[in-house]
């Protein structure tokens, strides 16, 4: 081999050993055993794919910047708004008691609307119907804070997802979206999150795409990000026209992806990249 080729071969060897180093790290990631018939053998939270420093940030309740939102919303919970003069507290009392478990089981079937409803929609339904107050805009700080606060009351509890009965067609629609290729880059959710999780892409480790930590404090945005904004971002990243947040498509997808993470502990407010 000529000297030029030896250098190239050495470079390729070095790259290969870095790549195997990364997948060896993946083998150490802790997860929970999936129930029978599930797509994964082991379900792993996004927490396990982040660096030690990011995980430390999430683990300390004072360092975790997501708690700034929890504190803001704790005040909002007691604030009366709307023509009925009610606050969340007027009907629900102390959130620590009344909201426990609520965030772990979303989206839930709504008999009046005859469709599943997620946490953001539920909060706005309460505001417009019971408080007679203006619903909060999606992505507004108030709605994201309150969603975080309510889901935080379920922290540590396992994610559950009811996928039978009237939820079944929504579950199937979500599954269909998950496996459909979209956009100019022609990628489906599964292309990255099922087939290639653990690999390094876009300067980051691809996770299983779980939702147990949402709304999450994204270091990139320096704020809490709700789930549908992340779905929107992923579709934008494959150069597709994203579905609208709180649309039927994203609600179906939210239900399906919740099932993919079944049993994972709710980590809201989590810290991710």
């Amino acid at each position, binding site marked *: 081999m000529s000297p030029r080729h030896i250098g190239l071969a050495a470079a390729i060897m070095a790259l290969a050993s870095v790549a195997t180093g990364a997948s060896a790290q993946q083998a150490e990631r802790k997860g929970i055993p999936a129930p029978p018939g599930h797509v994964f053998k082991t379900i792993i939270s996004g927490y396990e794919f982040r660096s030690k420093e990011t995980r430390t940030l999430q683990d300390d309740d004072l360092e975790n910047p997501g708690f700034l939102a929890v504190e803001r919303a704790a005040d909002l919970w007691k604030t009366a708004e709307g023509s009925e003069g009610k606050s969340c507290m007027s009907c629900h009392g102390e959130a620590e008691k009344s909201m426990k478990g609520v965030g772990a089981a979303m989206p839930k079937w709504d008999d009046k609307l005859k469709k599943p409803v997620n946490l953001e929609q539920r909060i706005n339904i309460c505001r417009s119907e019971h408080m007679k107050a203006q619903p909060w805009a999606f992505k507004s700080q108030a709605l994201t804070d309150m969603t975080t606060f309510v889901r935080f009351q379920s922290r540590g509890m396992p994610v559950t997802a009811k996928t039978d009965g009237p939820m079944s067609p929504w579950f199937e629609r979500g599954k269909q979206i998950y496996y459909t290729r979209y956009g100019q880059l022609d990628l489906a959710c599964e292309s990255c999150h099922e087939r290639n999780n653990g690999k390094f892409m876009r300067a980051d480790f691809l996770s299983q795409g779980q939702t147990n930590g949402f709304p999450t404090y994204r*270091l990139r945005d*320096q704020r809490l990000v709700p789930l549908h904004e992340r779905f929107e971002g992923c579709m934008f990243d494959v150069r597709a026209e994203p579905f609208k947040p709180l649309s039927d498509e994203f609600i179906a997808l939210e239900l399906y992806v919740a099932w993919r993470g079944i049993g994972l502990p709710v980590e809201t407010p989590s810290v991710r990249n």
Partner: protein
Amino acid sequence: MADKPRIKLPKEAAKGEIIQIKTLVSHMMESGQRKDAQGKPVPRKIINKFTCEFNGKPVFSCALEPAISANPYIQFNARVDEEGTFKFAWTDDDGTVITAEEKIALKA
């Protein structure tokens, strides 16, 4: 909507003990490097100074620069020789000061 700084320090300490103090404050820390949708630079607006005093005496202070990310987290140690009050102050570029205080007692 209160954006109170978050502070963590022990409720009491032994005389002479060195305690760890953790602080987190909500602030955009606009670096001045970003541009808005029209291409105009977003003006710099950061917390540029943090000070901590104990019973009127300075304990710790630092100057913050635009590279510090939003919601700055500052952690430091302090030696407690008497009971008293820690007073914290975060100074914004525009002169406003966010303050907070925490008391600490001596272990009997």
